[in-house]
């Protein structure tokens, strides 16, 4: 499609649509700065993205093949007197590694559950397989339920009206030149429960929204506050995380964390209930006794409280979510944060966005666009033009060779060439696994639970693993399945770190005797670089260039939100960070000039009014919510 040219002058050009970059974009646009926001990928949110099942298969294929850096073009003709050209990195090969996929369910629907068909594809060596898999995806995509037999011989990618489930990526055409293997499908549906086939996963692929990062939103964390403050929260809906679970002595147990939970708990004795309540009440405020433990492990502090093994486990691993050697002050701070977030919206401290975390950066991008920001995916910046004298970036050259002037440039860290990055500590990695399973790790009355599962190290030197199990009503997986995310700081490769946990908690071909456990239908392992140690500035880059890091290992989103605010305040110290957007009802079209300024005043008034009220409202909220859960 013939694309029009971009305007050639902006206040801020932002490269990469990860969370921090997207918040920065919204913040600048909101206060009237002209923003150009581009991403070389065909989808939003970079390593924060979520994909349909088929979209994820494409992502896997891309990451197994490795990237093909485009040829560096010669833009020297665009360089003006007194300018120097800095090339940006044009490949994203470093952030994702060790991609491994295992399909444990049968390829097609079968009458009876049989020995699962295991296929493995490893990075590098198995390109052929990856291509095969992708082409299977293609072929299954274009089939419709009733007509698939007939369509067998018709060519791929027929008319536009036909239902096609292309990879989730925006507006991308499925490659029509893929060979279409004629995998005949039996559509017989026996009444008895059977495993969902791979074909079915592909066919229902659009019902999945699989996040590359697995985080939760603390209900009083900086991201929730920012979403509410800016009114970006309007663009999304949320669900409560309904349970906190932990894995202990080979069993999955529910962690009682709210007052209601504690009293309803059947695992705890009356004495334990009292002890736990007393402990939770006492640690809200800092005491002399606690201070005495500063610098010593939290575990020691807990031991000395005579809580017993049960409570100690819950408090250390599931409430504070720290390790055995974490200092007491840190453990207590973490515990307090957990308690502070309880009861704002639900029974646990956490929220999860419906359709997955990948929605959040998109919501901020929309806010940016609503205030005039210009969006362009599949578009990159290849070079910076730097004024030699002032060491400031004056303009950038985009992937089409257009010179675009800007006052500030913000970019995702993966675009910074290795030679220009100043990295103090060796790059850390996250180990990730994504499982599609057929039942919950802890079945309950409701099959629509969203659970956080804390898995302490299974042996010395092994990482603590955080697991999030999502149900289909979170709109992240098809009905009848669960989507399970595992995350830890890497010790080895993702498979080395996480497969022992998977095999002990789930039924896989490697753990076939785990009959009572959920079966894994499909799983993916990969490592992602954790660049959160990277500084925003201080690299071998011009002074008005700012670097955003990718996702970090923490459960919450504080790092990205803080980074975005830091960049905004560095550039516009006088301006308000993400003031509320006006309510739709308040927008007044003022004759011939529907200018946003006409509405801003109102919005600010709206803001002013609330300070006190807001707190009252929140308290009311808490009370209301607490009374909302009488059953516990």
């Amino acid at each position, binding site marked *: *499609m013939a*694309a*029009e040219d*971009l305007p050639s002058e902006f206040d801020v050009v932002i490269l990469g649509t990860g969370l921090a970059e997207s918040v920065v974009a919204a913040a600048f646009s909101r206060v009237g700065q002209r923003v150009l926001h581009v991403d070389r990928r065909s989808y*939003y949110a970079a390593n924060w993205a979520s994909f349909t099942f088929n979209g994820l298969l494409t992502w896997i294929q891309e990451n197994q093949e490795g990237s093909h850096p485009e040829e560096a073009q010669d833009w020297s003709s665009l360089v003006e007197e007194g300018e120097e050209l800095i090339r940006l990195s044009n490949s994203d090969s470093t952030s994702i590694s060790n991609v491994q996929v295992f399909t444990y369910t049968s390829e097609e629907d079968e009458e009876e559950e049989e020995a699962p068909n295991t296929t493995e594809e490893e990075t590098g060596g198995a390109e052929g397989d990856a291509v095969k898999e992708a082409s299977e995806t293609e072929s299954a995509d274009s089939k419709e339920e009733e007509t698939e037999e007939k369509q067998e011989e018709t060519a791929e990618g027929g008319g*536009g*009206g036909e*239902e*096609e*489930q*292309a990879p*989730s990526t*925006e*507006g991308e055409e499925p490659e029509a030149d893929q060979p279409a293997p004629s995998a005949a499908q039996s559509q017989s549906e026996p009444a008895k429960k059977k495993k969902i086939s791979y074909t079915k996963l592909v066919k229902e692929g659009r019902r999945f929204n699989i996040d590359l990062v697995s985080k939760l939103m603390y209900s009083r964390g900086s991201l*929730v506050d920012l979403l*509410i403050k800016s*009114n970006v929260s*309007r*663009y*999304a*809906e*949320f*669900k409560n995380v*309904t349970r906190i679970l932990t894995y202990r002595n080979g069993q999955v147990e529910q962690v009682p964390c709210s007052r209601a939970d504690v009293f309803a708990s059947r695992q705890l004795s009356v004495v334990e209930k009292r002890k736990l309540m007393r402990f939770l009440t006492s640690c809200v405020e800092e005491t002399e006794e606690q201070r005495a433990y500063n610098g010593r492990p939290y575990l020691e502090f807990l031991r000395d409280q005579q809580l017993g093994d049960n409570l100690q486990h819950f408090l250390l691993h599931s409430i504070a979510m720290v390790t055995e050697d974490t200092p007491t002050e840190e453990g207590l701070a973490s515990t307090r944060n957990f308690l502070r977030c309880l009861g704002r*919206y639900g029974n646990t401290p956490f*929220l999860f966005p*419906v*359709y997955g975390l990948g*929605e959040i950066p*998109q919501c901020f*991008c*929309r806010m940016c*666009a*609503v*205030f*005039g920001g*210009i*969006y362009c*995916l*599949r*578009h990159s910046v290849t070079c910076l033009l730097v004024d030699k004298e002032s060491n400031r970036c004056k303009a950038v050259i985009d992937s089409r060779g257009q010179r675009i002037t800007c006052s500030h440039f913000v970019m995702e860290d993966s675009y910074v060439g290795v030679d220009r990055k100043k990295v103090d500590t060796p790059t850390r990695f996250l180990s990730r696994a994504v499982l599609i399973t057929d039942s919950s790790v802890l079945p309950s009355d*409701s099959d*629509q639970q*969203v659970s956080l599962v804390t898995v302490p190290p299974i042996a010395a030197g092994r990482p603590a693993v955080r697991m999030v199990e999502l149900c289909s*009503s979170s*709109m992240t997986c098809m009905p009848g399945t669960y989507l399970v995310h595992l995350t830890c700081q890497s010790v080895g490769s993702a498979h080395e770190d996480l497969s022992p946990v998977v095999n002990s908690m789930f039924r896989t071909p490697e753990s076939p005797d785990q009959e009572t456990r959920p079966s894994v239908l499909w799983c993916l392992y990969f490592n992602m670089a954790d660049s959160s140690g990277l500084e925003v500035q201080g690299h071998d880059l011009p002074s008005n260039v700012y670097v955003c890091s990718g996702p970090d290992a923490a459960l919450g989103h504080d790092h990205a939100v803080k980074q975005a605010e830091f960049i905004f305040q560095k550039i516009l110290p006088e301006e308000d960070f993400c003031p509320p*957007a*006006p309510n*739709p*009802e308040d*927008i007044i*079209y003022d004759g*011939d000039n*529907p200018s946003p300024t006409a509405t*801003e005043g109102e919005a600010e008034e709206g803001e002013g009014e*609330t300070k006190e009220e807001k707190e009252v*409202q929140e308290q*009311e*909220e808490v009370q*209301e919510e607490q009374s909302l859960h009488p059953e516990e």
Partner: protein
Amino acid sequence: MAIRELKVCLLGDTGVGKSSIVCRFVQDHFDHNISPTIGASFLTKTVPCGNELHKFLIWDTAGQERFHSLAPMYYRGSAAAVIVYDITKLDSFQTLKKWVKELKEHGPEDIVVAIAGNKNDLGDIREVPMKEAKEFAESIAAIFIETSARNAVNVEELFQKISKQIPPLENPEVESNESFKITRQPTPSTRRCC
């Protein structure tokens, strides 16, 4: 009367009059040099339908369609989509198919689709025959109507037609973990997401 919030997303090429249609519907106002997407997260208008009130939350593309960069979140939970083309620009009709395909890929399955041929006040320079457009709409079971945001022709009707096609509310399930909005208001609305 029960108020039901219905998200409607607008699709169509840049310049076909998406924003003008909303502006006419919501504000009964038309402006030649409109830049209404600025600052408007979405616009709302409530219309009665049977014994319900339909509160339309009308989402504009905010210009993100211009460089083919609409985000999937734009389509989430939409009850209806209005795909707009310009009857004086054949190109904008030819890309309808592309928008229908986008919608099939990213939109909810049960979405009500309406196709609006805008600028029908400019009949003398028409490039898209009404018959052809109507047939196309029928082929995908979509509502079809020609509108003029400028002369306020058929804009109300477009939304009335959509209202009528919205399936009645299913029995409110007793779902313990419903999705909700987070706002500064004391009681978050608990509209089901789809």
